[in-house]
């Protein structure tokens, strides 16, 4: 098991901004200890060289000058393993810190090892928490981090958080502790509101980036946009607030945009009407990324002949490459964007309820499109149109307008087949549908060899191939077999253990696997745990995998970021076995809030539970677990 830990477990998530690549401390946890103690686990140089009476200082200076050029966190992790000296110097030169699981390492330990960090990225809750599978208040609090970062890195410039609970207090501290603060990116976070944003706007005078992405922002009557400094040029480059579900002070926003000549990315929320959008666009023709807000008229405003010339406003934005928004689209206005379509590399229509005809008018211009997010309201026909035009497409996401198991399903295997034939360079796909066939999935596996991410969600649980009645095993089997670069996979539909056998046999690069309502027996999970050496993140729900299967992963759990299993066949006893076998694994058992009325969890440690969530950690059980979480030992 020790040998496997020295292997660099690749850590990847597509969403962090490209400029925030740090190192995952938890992955190099054993290496930390090795570096510090200089034990026999050190690889590389002969230990005797430590003690040679050589000018270490010169060597270290040279090292420092060289290592500072290493940006990839995987390279840095590798470098830190060479010897004690390299470990120390690497720690000194690492400026971007990436924590994949906020509980895998304590803020104190992280800041103690890395002393010169300028950018921090932290991820918290497990992804399945996004779908209400877990009571809120589970944890992932930013507070202890902001306190530690505040004392360790007063020069901190960038903070990226994903699935963390951030309070207004925390934001206030951010603004207070870091006078050079430049970038705040909050993805899928919650716990804060417009009050917190107001403090950031007001106090962070060097703010370049304020990006709120898919986060829940509590409403208050605080006019946070109005808190940006009223006079002087700002250095704002990116302002993204399309997820904010409350109105904003538009006049203040307009003034802000006028004073922000460096602004390149602006994504408005749905409380900005198309008329207001126009006013902003004419002030900021230099935009490269635009989120259009509602893209319809304000309440109570009627169509008139005196409407602004939206077409020319778009045409003036010659640098526009990324378009999103359309939160409340009045489809008549869609023609306004034609002028920019030819330059677009990214188009997000996933809030726009438009049909195939309406889409066609737009998509036929989008020859350069690489990223396309859309609603299934466009039907298979719309997808065929996209396939015919967007030859450079790399990422496609098709969301359901009616997210229920038994709704109509306007897209199907037909659309998937068309995409596979038209978009040969496809790397990533997320596809929600009601009906699918193995044939279409196999076709995609053959036509799109560059696929790295394949996430198919057949919304009806246990649904087989709708033409042959067969399970979807062969389709997913073909994906893992033919797509040699596949790192992320989400399966659905009727699946037997055979599907998992394929995954275990061929999915050698798979890092993230998502399973729901699939499999027949423990063997399914065993295939995966025994067969996929790169597996990092495994999330399973409602599948018949039990303790026996869980045991088969013992050799691998320290290499993983986490394992989530909910509504499977696990017992508290089985989970406790794992906890005892692996002392550095935190094994959390989560019960629905309604079941925890009774008091002390210790007494009820053998009660049935809903969710198993376990992850490696240097710190042992966390001290902020709510009462519905029991940590087994």
């Amino acid at each position, binding site marked *: 098991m020790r040998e496997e830990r020295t292997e660099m477990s690749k850590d990847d998530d597509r969403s962090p901004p490209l400029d925030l690549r740090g190192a995952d401390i938890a992955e190099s946890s054993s290496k930390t200890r090795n570096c510090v103690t200089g034990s026999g686990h050190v690889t590389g140089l002969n230990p005797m060289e430590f003690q040679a009476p050589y000018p270490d200082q010169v060597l270290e200076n040279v090292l420092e000058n060289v290592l500072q050029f290493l940006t990839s966190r995987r390279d840095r992790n590798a470098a830190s393993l060479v010897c004690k000296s390299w470990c120390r110097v690497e720690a000194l030169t690492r400026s971007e810190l990436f924590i994949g699981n906020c509980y895998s390492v304590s803020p104190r330990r992280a800041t103690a090892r890395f002393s010169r960090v300028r950018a921090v990225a932290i991820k918290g809750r497990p992804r*399945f928490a*996004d*779908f*209400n*599978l877990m009571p809120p208040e589970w944890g992932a609090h930013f507070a202890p981090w902001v306190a530690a970062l505040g004392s360790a890195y007063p020069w901190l410039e960038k903070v990226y958080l994903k699935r963390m609970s951030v309070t207004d207090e925390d934001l206030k501290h951010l603004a207070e502790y870091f006078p050079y603060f430049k970038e705040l990116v909050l993805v*899928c976070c919650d716990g804060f509101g417009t009050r917190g944003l107001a403090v950031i706007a007001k106090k962070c005078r060097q703010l370049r980036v304020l990006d709120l992405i*898919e986060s*829940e922002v509590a409403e208050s009557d605080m006019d946070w946009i109005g808190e940006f400094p009223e006079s002087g040029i700002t250095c704002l480059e990116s302002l993204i607030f399309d*997820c904010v*579900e409350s109105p904003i002070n538009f006049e203040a926003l307009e003034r802000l945009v006028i004073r922000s000549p460096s602004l390149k990315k602006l994504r408005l929320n749905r409380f900005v009407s198309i008329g207001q959008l126009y006013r902003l666009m004419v002030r900021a023709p230099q935009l490269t990324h635009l989120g259009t807000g509602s893209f319809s008229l304000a309440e*109570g405003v*009627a169509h008139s002949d005196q409407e602004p010339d939206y077409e020319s406003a778009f045409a003036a934005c010659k640098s526009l490459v990324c378009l999103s928004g359309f*939160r409340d689209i009045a489809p008549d206005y869609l023609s306004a964007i034609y002028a920019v379509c030819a330059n677009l590399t990214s188009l997000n229509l*996933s*809030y726009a*309820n438009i049909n195939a005809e309406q889409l066609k008018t737009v998509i036929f211009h989008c020859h350069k499109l690489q990223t396309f997010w859309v609603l299934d309201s466009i039907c298979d026909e719309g997808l065929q149109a996209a396939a015919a035009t967007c030859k450079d497409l790399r990422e496609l996401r098709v*969301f*359901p*307008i*009616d*997210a*229920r*198991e*038994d709704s109509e399903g306007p897209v199907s295997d037909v659309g998937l087949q068309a995409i596979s034939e038209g978009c040969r360079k496809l790397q990533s796909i997320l596809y*929600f549908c*009601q009906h699918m066939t193995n044939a279409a999935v196999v076709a995609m596996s053959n036509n799109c060899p560059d696929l790295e991410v394949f996430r198919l*969600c057949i*919304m*009806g*649980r*246990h*649904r*087989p191939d*709708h033409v042959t*009645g*067969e*399970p979807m095993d062969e389709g997913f089997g073909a994906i893992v077999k033919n797509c040699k670069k596949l790192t992320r996979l989400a399966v659905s539909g*009727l699946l*037997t253990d055979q599907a998992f056998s394929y995954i275990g046999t061929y999915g050698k690069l798979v890092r993230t696997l998502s399973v*729901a*309502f699939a499999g*027949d027996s423990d063997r399914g999970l065993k295939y995966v745990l025994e067969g996929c050496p790169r597996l990092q993140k495994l999330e399973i*729900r*409602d599948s*018949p995998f*039990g303790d026996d299967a869980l045991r088969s992963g013992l050799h691998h759990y320290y290499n993983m970021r986490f394992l989530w299993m*909910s*509504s*499977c*066949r*696990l*017992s*508290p*006893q*089985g989970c406790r076995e794992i906890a005892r076998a692996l002392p550095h694994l935190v094994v959390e058992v989560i019960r*629905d809030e*309604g079941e925890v009325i009774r008091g002390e969890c210790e007494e009820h440690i*053998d009660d*049935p539970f*809903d969710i198993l969530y376990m992850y490696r950690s240097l710190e042992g059980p966390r001290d902020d677990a709510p009462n519905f979480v029991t940590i087994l030992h």
Partner: protein
Amino acid sequence: MERSVSYGGNDLNLEATELRLGLPGSDEHEKQSSPSARTSNKRASPEVAEESSSLSNSNVSDARNGDQDSAPPAKAQVVGWPPIRSYRRNSFQQKKTEADGAGMYVKVSMDGAPYLRKVDLKVYKSYPELLKALENMFKLTIGEYSEREGYNGSDFAPTYEDKDGDWMLVGDVPWDMFISTCKRLRIMKGSEARGLGSL
């Protein structure tokens, strides 16, 4: 002793308090190839499948286990499935109800008129528009609204029945609130109408 996970007992009638996305009473049966699903032997035995369905995070009576219930059960929505984040789900819930059917027609009665009319409230964006339409429809004058005096100077007063069944004067609440609570309209006439002005 290996105990399998269960949701906390099958004796809790969770179905009764379950949140559904469909209309109450709608029994949308699974449309696609359930026959082939039933005949497929790849699924675990019904006994096991039943257990696995109670393992899921809500009480879904698996439509394929026909022997559980006599009537084909509606496919109840399972928590967190499909995996769409709630903000995305919600933004289309709203839109669906707005775009539902052909507008928002309510009956309009006028005292003394032989038959009722219907108007589509969606067509209007404000009270003046609605009142003007009513004036045209019934060939009368309703007059100006004032908070203090209602529709003074007119023989007619527009009223509506709200969700609670109370008769309210048109114009008191914001327009959006009005169209979401208005069940029907009634144009009151004569002394009854004038009486409102002196309340």
